[in-house]
């Protein structure tokens, strides 16, 4: 029992990071129809920035906040390159983000070297139902919940949020009422960068920053917001359970097969003819 609770909590903690990165991807995709292959880079850059700022003596909180801002700025830059040139179709923009993701890796290694880094999170451990785990997990879960609630408010209660939803659901109508779809696309890239950055900053204290963000990217295959949250959490929990009860070596396979299954199940439910432009 206590073991199960422990796996569940650590799994949800890891899943929150997936969900954050994934929802950044979804925000960008919905507004711009571009799948951002540079999304994982936002998390890594923010985490590395935070480690540098903390090492240089900035207090916790400020350092992480600045790092998230750096993530947002990176997102904006990626967006400028990917959709800034008028007439770039989403498919081409996808390949551009793939290129930028590869480029970002070079920048990361150049600036921070190729050794993994980490920094401390919330100290101490907590006990729930006899399960002991690092207190930092509570911060991750709490922060993720707060961010998702905040995003909900942003999209339904502010004019910029409404404009973003408008571009996502009907770009033509958005143009009709005078909303700049490109500018809103850039805003969505900045939001995606911030969410990715937050995920990186939150997760680094419990697992080293590595450059292996491929798994996280797959979450982006789930392009509906609710699915992203559910998918991210499920992924985290499944990984923790497999690692705990089964063979840790097969963690990644389980995650990937799960994602593939969901993607294929989704695809099987919609006819093709409806998607093609006439």
């Amino acid at each position, binding site marked *: 029992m206590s073991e199960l609770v422990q796996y569940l909590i650590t799994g949800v903690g890891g899943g929150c990071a997936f969900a954050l990165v994934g929802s950044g991807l979804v925000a960008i995709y919905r507004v711009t129809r571009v799948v951002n292959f540079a999304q994982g880079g936002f998390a890594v850059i923010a985490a590395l920035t935070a480690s540098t700022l903390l090492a240089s003596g900035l207090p916790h909180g400020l350092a992480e906040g600045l790092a998230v801002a750096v993530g947002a700025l990176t997102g904006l830059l990626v967006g400028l390159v990917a959709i800034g040139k008028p007439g770039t179709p989403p498919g081409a923009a996808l390949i551009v983000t793939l290129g930028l993701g590869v480029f970002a890796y*070079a920048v990361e290694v150049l600036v921070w070297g190729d050794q993994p880094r980490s920094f401390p999170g919330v100290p101490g451990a907590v006990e729930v139902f006899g399960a002991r785990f690092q207190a930092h997990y509570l911060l991750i879960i709490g922060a993720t919940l707060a961010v998702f609630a905040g995003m909900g408010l942003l999209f339904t209660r502010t004019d910029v949020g409404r404009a973003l939803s408008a571009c996502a659901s009907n770009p033509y109508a958005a143009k009709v009422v005078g909303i700049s779809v490109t500018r809103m696309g850039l805003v969505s890239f900045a939001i995606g960068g911030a969410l990715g950055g937050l995920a990186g900053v939150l997760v680094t204290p419990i697992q080293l920053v590595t450059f292996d963000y491929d798994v996280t990217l797959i979450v982006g295959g789930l392009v509906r917001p609710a699915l992203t949250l559910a998918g991210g959490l499920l992924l985290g929990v499944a990984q923790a359970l497999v690692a705990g009860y089964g063979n840790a070596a097969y963690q990644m396979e389980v995650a*990937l097969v799960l994602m593939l299954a969901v993607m294929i199940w989704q695809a099987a439910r919609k006819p093709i003819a409806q998607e093609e432009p006439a």
Partner: protein
Amino acid sequence: MRSRVVRWAPGVVVAAGTLALPPLLESGHLSVYILLGLAAMVTIGLSLLMGYAGQVSLGQASFYAIGGYTAGLLSVHSFPPVLGLLAAPVAAALFALLVGVPLLRLRGHHLAFATLATQLILLSLVGQADWAGGAIGLQGIPRLSVGGYEFAEDISYAYLTWAAVALTLVVAHNVVASRSGRGLRALATSETAAAASGVPVGGYRLAVFALSAAFAGLAGGIYAFYLGYIAPGSFPVLLSIEYVVMAVVGGLGTLWGALVGATAIVLLIQVLNTVGTQPGMPSYAPSVLSYAVYGLLLVVVVLFLPHGIVPAMQRRMTQTLTVGKR
């Protein structure tokens, strides 16, 4: 008649150059020449898949790996190496058929994600399979021999590789020009209209996926015999991305583009490696340099030469010709 000569001339020149080159190259350059040929084979398949049939694969290196492991495992277990070489493309194609049935329900970026995921799963499974050498890899793969002839020298692998390149080019060219090829090119722009014309869309998508995998598998087989050693680390995700870069840079939808793209990128990597391994450079310099250059190249080509190098050059040439005529 003259137009025929003009059309065939570049091919003849390239073929002659290809044949003449190996004896003139020193050993380091010869190995680059072989790797270039192998990359070109994979890229030709990818170009067929992406450029003609409109399907994106970010996992092409997994078929390369399947080919390599098939050839390696068979010959390590004392099957005749030539059997291993022949089995490599077949195994890769079978694997593509197997994963293709569920995966090809996906389209566009979903398919890209899914092929990437497939490669990650494959690499991880191979890394844990002791019978395939695990993470350390498969060692002691014998040299290729056909009949009594052993491919012992690099130069023989160079000719073997480029003969295989020629084979893939011819097969790809014939497929594109045939009835099936027309069906493929049609479904790339409108699956609905292609199906309404009688093209079995699902079957064709699967067939071209398997064909591109077979090309990669054959290249992987040659690679295994040439190096004598393969490991999961020989087939990273970046390699798959590299193939996409080659296909895109050269130009999708032209087979020459695949060749030009592969050549440009492989040569570029060599230059970067040379720069990166200069004394005083940090150990990670070569990889950082190549990542940075790939990334930038991909961005610049997609934004400013969206059809790739070869089509852009062709357009430039026809323009000059028509202007000249006036």
